[in-house]
């Protein structure tokens, strides 16, 4: 009987995808709104104008709703690594657990502490001290993302660890390599700035609602202006950073980049590498390993991905073939490792070390070996198993291709929207262009959607690996009964749907209410602005 039930693996993946996608509905707003709120408070501290304090209060209230529910959805994911992915936790727990622990101890505690001071410290802290607290809250929320993405960076491009054949797991050899992994760095910057776009469009969209209705106009116009400028720089940065991340994937995850581009043949297969088209539209068919329809722009793909004019991008079919010898070598590695575990034979250890770099491919072949046992591979079934494993080394192309394209098209849409918004705001002509205001309002969910598709691109494109090149997803799951997994999946779906309903209800409720004028609770001795020359200006009211 097979050791690993594929249904359990699929259900574990579905459950993690569900919880991660739900959680990521909240994360981008948290990442982006904190810094935008900090910018608003900065203006308040510098100018002393009460309207900026009101803006800080109002947007912080909406941020608080999002933050509270977002935290609740994130907690379960850390436990899922232990419950549903115990093999993964055993294999890379020493490495993966470290950034997660640091995230809990440093970023999460920092964020939670300062968020309390941010909300309840207005009457207890001086203005500069409160501003510092707001910046520390923003920094804490982004540091939280940083440590998660360092952990994810290890899964995409394992660095800073080596496999120990005695303990049978990966162990740290360089913390600095883990933290400064190019993949982790690029992912963090791309994700964080994508959150800035989400935060900016949220503030801009809600402000548009007020302007269209003709209420809170002074408040909304200032919020819109700040969000539009915050958003235009962020959206341009996120596109540029995405391009750089693509080049990094080309260097370290060739199967992912080929799937993203729907590239079955090498980029120089039809003419020269330089002339190969970048596909605007295609329908990749994973079964036939070809694209059904293609619309592309010639001469764009190679410079876009390789940042050169002539480097060849290997196609998925080539990458499959290249995996063949590595699978054979990996099978030798796993058999030698098994022998070393049983006999501690130095010769077996030497054989393993010779093939260690291909160990992951041996694990991958286990799925297709009789009874998932590599020792049962015979000359009669060898070629069929290698062929099956070769096909399993590439991700689902249709999903990866379209997840990336939706994210990217949305990214360019945001640049255009923010450009118009910033232009009309700077000319004080927003009311003359209700189309831009309506577009901003109805685009509020789109950056969050783009972030979701970005996550799908990164994770679906990494398949079939949990840890790229080392541990297949198939080998990473726990062995639960199918019923348990189905029950918990439905439970999570219902619970998280309640969270979403609560978030939407509260956001709509407080968003419609708009800014409520607060009484001035400034403590004695802090009535004057920090840098402003005049008294606090309340003329906007």
């Amino acid at each position: 009987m097979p050791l690993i039930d594929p249904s359990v693996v699929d259900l574990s993946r579905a459950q993690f995808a569900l919880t991660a996608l739900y959680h990521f509905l909240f994360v981008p707003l948290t990442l982006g709104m904190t810094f935008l709120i900090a910018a608003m408070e900065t203006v308040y501290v510098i100018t002393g104008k009460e309207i900026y304090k009101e803006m800080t209060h109002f947007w912080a209230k909406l941020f608080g709703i999002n933050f509270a529910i977002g935290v609740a959805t994130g907690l379960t994911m850390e436990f899922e690594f232990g419950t549903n992915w115990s093999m993964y936790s055993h294999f890379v727990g020493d490495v993966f657990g470290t950034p997660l622990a640091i995230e809990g101890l440093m970023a999460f505690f920092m964020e939670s502490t300062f968020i309390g001071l941010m909300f309840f410290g207005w009457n207890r802290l001086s203005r500069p001290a409160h501003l510092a607290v707001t910046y520390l809250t923003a920094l804490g929320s982004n540091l939280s993302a940083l440590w998660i993405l360092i952990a994810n960076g290890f899964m995409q491009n394992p660095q800073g660890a080596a496999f120990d054949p005695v303990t049978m797991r990966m162990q740290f050899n360089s913390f600095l390599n883990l933290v400064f992994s190019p993949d982790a760095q690029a992912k963090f910057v791309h994700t964080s700035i994508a959150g800035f776009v989400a935060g900016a469009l949220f503030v801009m969209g809600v402000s548009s609602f007020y302007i269209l209705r003709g209420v809170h106009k002074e408040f909304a116009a200032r919020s819109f202006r700040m969000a539009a400028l915050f958003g235009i720089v962020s959206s341009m940065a996120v596109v540029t950073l995405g391009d750089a991340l693509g080049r990094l994937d080309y260097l370290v995850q060739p199967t992912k980049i080929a799937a993203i581009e729907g590239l079955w043949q090498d980029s120089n297969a039809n003419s020269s590498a330089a002339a190969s088209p970048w596909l605007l539209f295609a329908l990749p068919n994973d079964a036939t390993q070809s694209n059904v329809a293609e619309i592309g722009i010639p001469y764009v793909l190679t410079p876009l991905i390789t940042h050169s004019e002539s480097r060849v991008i290997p196609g998925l079919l080539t990458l499959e073939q290249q995996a063949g010898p590595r699978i054979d070598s990996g099978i030798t590695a796993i058999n030698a490792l098994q022998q070393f575990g049983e006999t501690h034979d130095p010769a077996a250890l030497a054989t393993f070390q010779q093939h260690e770099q291909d160990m992951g491919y041996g694990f991958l072949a286990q799925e297709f070996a009789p009874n998932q046992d590599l020792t049962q591979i015979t000359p009669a079934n060898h070629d069929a198993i290698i062929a099956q494993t070769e096909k399993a080394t590439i991700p689902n192309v249709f999903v990866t291709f379209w997840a990336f394209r939706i994210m990217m098209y949305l990214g360019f849409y945001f640049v255009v929207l923010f450009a118009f918004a910033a232009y009309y705001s700077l000319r004080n002509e927003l009311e003359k262009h209700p189309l831009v205001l309506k577009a901003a309002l109805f685009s509020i969910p789109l950056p969050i959607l783009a972030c979701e598709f970005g996550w799908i691109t990164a994770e679906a494109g990494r398949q079939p690996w949990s840890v790229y090149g080392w541990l297949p997803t198939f080998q990473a799951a726990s062995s639960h009964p199918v019923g348990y997994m189905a029950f918990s999946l439905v439970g999570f779906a219902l619970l998280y749907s309640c969270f979403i309903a609560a978030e939407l209800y509260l956001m709509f409720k407080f968003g419609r209410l708009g800014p409520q004028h607060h009484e001035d609770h400034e403590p004695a001795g802090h009535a004057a602005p920090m840098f402003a020359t005049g008294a606090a200006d309340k003329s906007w009211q």
Partner: protein
Amino acid sequence: MGKFFKLAGLAVVIALAIALAVVAGDYGPWYFAWLVGTTMIVLIAAAGAVLFDTQEPNSNGKV
């Protein structure tokens, strides 16, 4: 004396910022880009608000 300590404090902050820039620039160029970029984004947004206030007297209530 107070001014001296203020200047000394600022000098320490500048030295730390330069050290951070050198280390981050060498080992974590993306992290460095995030630090600089985020600061720039926040400052541009803040500058937009200040500009709004200077435009306001001439805007006749237009937004």
